[in-house]
């Protein structure tokens, strides 16, 4: 069974290799390679997760080369790493398969191959970001992730998508350069790049009080860089543009997977590099908390104001990411588990919303404004069902996945003085705002059409893949909402490992 310990490295190298293979292939075969890669790596992540659940330590370190830790590279896998990679792979596969019909329409025919290459490279980067045990390896794969995700946006053949991709690239590069500066500062005051060594050195420096100022700055830079890349509140302005104009599969991958991967890396850095106590001591958490709450409110207000259904979903992403940062900012274990569950709920729901919203707008010739998509639910019933499921999940109705994190957030809020009040009030306001804008779309798409606005009906047909995938996504959402306890217990164990194992 020790063979399973090879699988994290096999996942990373296999996806890099398959990107190269796709470069030499025709479109159809390249697409096949992408699906094959996502399925096999999903199986491999599941195997690693099972192996770690059944092993004694629940954790292993894999040497990348012939040299031990501070000298060579290494990767590590506990419980959270394979679990989140599995989630990312499932979401990527579903949004790729469900959005394949739109990819055909939105991407130039001769460039389909590049879409597959970029998906493979993104997957490699995600796997490496999850499994990395070395901060510089993390940075290298952040670079790959940045370029690949920009490319996924650029492939949509609209001029607006190029503008959006440029904007996303600027924000993303600001984020990566802040991370890089942070890593440089961290290296010059600790002399290490690997997580365990960095951790022990930082603990020593923090207790002796040596280099406290550069250390705080370095941590702040890394945290804010990753926060910018994942779209935290004051830096969320790239979101509506990018998610609203890209092809739905790319929007789904970007909102559901890539921004979450940065959040996961941030969590890993907080626990495995900075250390939980130093993080709580450094007061960076309050900044995250405040910006998270602001993001929840501002994102929702923007979502209410916009008239375009895809922009609305994108703004709601900004709000949902605010929840995650609020949880990280509160800093208790319960809140962090709630934030992790929010990652799961959001990345399962958002791609489904993007896919079904584009399914709805197909009925009116690809228009996304509310006046146009009125009563479109009657023309595309499957998309409407999954859109309703997604909307109810985002609002936080019980039995859907989105309910669990809200419950966990509110239960973990108590006993923190002023923060309790802030958090509960923000949760209440944000839930009301969520209800406002999501139920508005639901009422809108199910209302009968206005007579004077009637247009020529546009003939369209849902592809089988689209129908099956959106229904599967709705089913998965409900399943996660009903059976949340196993997932929460895995998260609890994984978080304990993050805190305890050095």
């Amino acid at each position: 069974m020790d063979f399973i310990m090879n699988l994290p490295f096999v996942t990373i190298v296999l996806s890099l290799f398959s990107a190269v293979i796709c470069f030499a292939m025709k479109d159809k075969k390249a697409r096949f390679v992408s699906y094959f890669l996502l399925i096999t790596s999903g199986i491999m992540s599941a195997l690693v997760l099972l192996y770690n659940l059944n092993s004694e330590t629940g954790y292993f370190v894999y040497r990348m080369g012939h040299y031990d830790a501070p000298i060579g590279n290494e990767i590590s896998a506990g419980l959270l790493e394979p679990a989140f990679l599995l989630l990312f792979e499932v979401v990527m596969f579903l949004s790729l398969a469900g959005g394949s019909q739109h990819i055909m329409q939105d991407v130039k025919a001769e460039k389909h191959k590049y879409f597959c290459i970029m998906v493979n490279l993104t997957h490699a980067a995600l796997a490496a970001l999850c499994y990395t045990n070395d901060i510089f390896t993390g940075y290298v794969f952040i670079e790959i992730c940045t370029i690949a995700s920009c490319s996924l946006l650029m492939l949509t053949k609209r001029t607006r998508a190029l503008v959006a991709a440029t904007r996303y690239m600027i924000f993303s590069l600001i984020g990566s350069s802040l991370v890089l500066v942070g890593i440089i500062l961290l290296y010059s005051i600790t002399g290490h790049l690997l997580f365990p060594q960095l951790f022990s050195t930082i603990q020593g420096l923090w207790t002796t009080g040596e280099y406290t100022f550069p250390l705080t700055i370095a941590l702040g830079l890394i945290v804010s860089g990753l926060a910018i890349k994942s779209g935290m509140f004051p830096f969320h302005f790239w979101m509506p543009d990018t998610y609203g104009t890209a092809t739905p599969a790319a929007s789904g991958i970007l909102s559901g997977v890539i921004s979450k991967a940065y959040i996961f890396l941030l969590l890993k850095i907080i626990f495995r590099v900075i250390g939980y106590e130093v993080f709580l001591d450094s007061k960076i958490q309050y900044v995250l908390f405040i910006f998270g709450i602001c993001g929840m409110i501002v994102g929702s207000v923007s979502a209410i104001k916009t008239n375009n259904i895809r922009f609305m979903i994108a703004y709601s992403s900004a709000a949902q990411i605010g929840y995650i940062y609020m949880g990280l900012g509160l800093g208790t274990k319960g809140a962090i588990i709630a934030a992790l569950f929010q990652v799961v709920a959001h990345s399962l729901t958002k791609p489904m919303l993007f896919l079904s919203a584009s399914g709805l707008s197909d009925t009116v010739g690809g228009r996304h404004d509310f006046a146009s998509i009125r009563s479109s639910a009657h023309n595309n019933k499957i998309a409407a069902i999954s859109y309703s499921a997604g909307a109810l999940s985002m609002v936080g109705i019980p039995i859907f996945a989105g309910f669990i994190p809200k419950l966990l957030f509110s239960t973990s809020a108590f006993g923190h003085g002023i923060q309790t009040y802030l958090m509960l009030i923000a949760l209440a306001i944000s839930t009301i705002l969520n209800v406002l804008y999501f139920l508005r779309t639901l009422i809108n798409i199910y209302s009968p059409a206005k007579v004077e606005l009637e247009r020529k009906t546009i003939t369209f047909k849902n592809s089988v893949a689209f129908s099956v995938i959106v229904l599967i996504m709705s089913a998965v959402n409900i399943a996660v909402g009903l059976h949340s306890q196993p997932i929460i217990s895995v998260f609890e164990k994984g978080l304990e490992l993050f805190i305890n194992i050095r």
Partner: protein
Amino acid sequence: MKNKFSSLLKEWYEGNLSFDDRMNSEPEKVTTIKEESEKKEIRIVKDVENAEQKLTSKGYKFFSVIFCVILAVVLIGTVNFMPLFADNNTPTTNEVYEHYVGEGRDQTGAVNTVAGMILDYRAFDTLGESFVLFTATCAVLLLLEQSKNKPIKKRETFTFSNDPIVCTVVKILTPIIIVFGIYVLFNGHLSPGGGFSGGSVLGAGFILFAMAYGEDNAAKIIKPSIIRVITICSLSFYCLAKSYSFFTGNEFNGIHSIITPGTPGNIVSGGLILPLNIAVGFVVCCTMYSFYMIFKRGRLD
């Protein structure tokens, strides 16, 4: 009051209430699909501008300036607290540094410690770096490559192909540059240099050739299929070689690596460092050359 509020609410949920100057205008009626798609583009632009600029246009510039100034002040301030540069007692002169310098030559077989570090000790990072180059090549290709059915756009560019001085100098220089690039590549484990620097020298040689003799002539000699094949082979070789090395590096697999460091100083030594240097060099060279050709010409062939 109550009626007004409820009518506003109705307007809003139907999507007719927008927060810009179209507030009171009638919803547009469009009929044909072409008109529809044109209007859609305009509407998307308008929506983005309205949704964002209203919030940000005034505050945005102000806050970006504030953000930059604060960042600059903080970063410059941090320098004061950092350890001195090139001091013997900095935190970076620790056991890792001692190991690299002291035992690097014997363990990796590379006289050039940097080559030993990047291609043996921390080869996984370098694998990632060469894939960054590959990703960038793909991104440039997908963005700028013109389709084969379209004729190449003739742009008014200045070429040196009729200039006897430039052509003669390039004719003499190109072989020398390429030979020097190959030397840097193959001696990467023995002397300063290696894959990245040797590859960029090689790429510069080819770019010089293409600049002097015109991109059309260069494209006839260096075919795009060759560039693709070299890139694919180099990266595949890198993946496979390093997979072998990572796989054998862990004892529980029960296989020992057959690759030995050899005698440090020999040209065939350093285990995988020499072939990996060559692979990285080829990738860098192809990346640079194809960037030049795509930016200048729109496609590789």
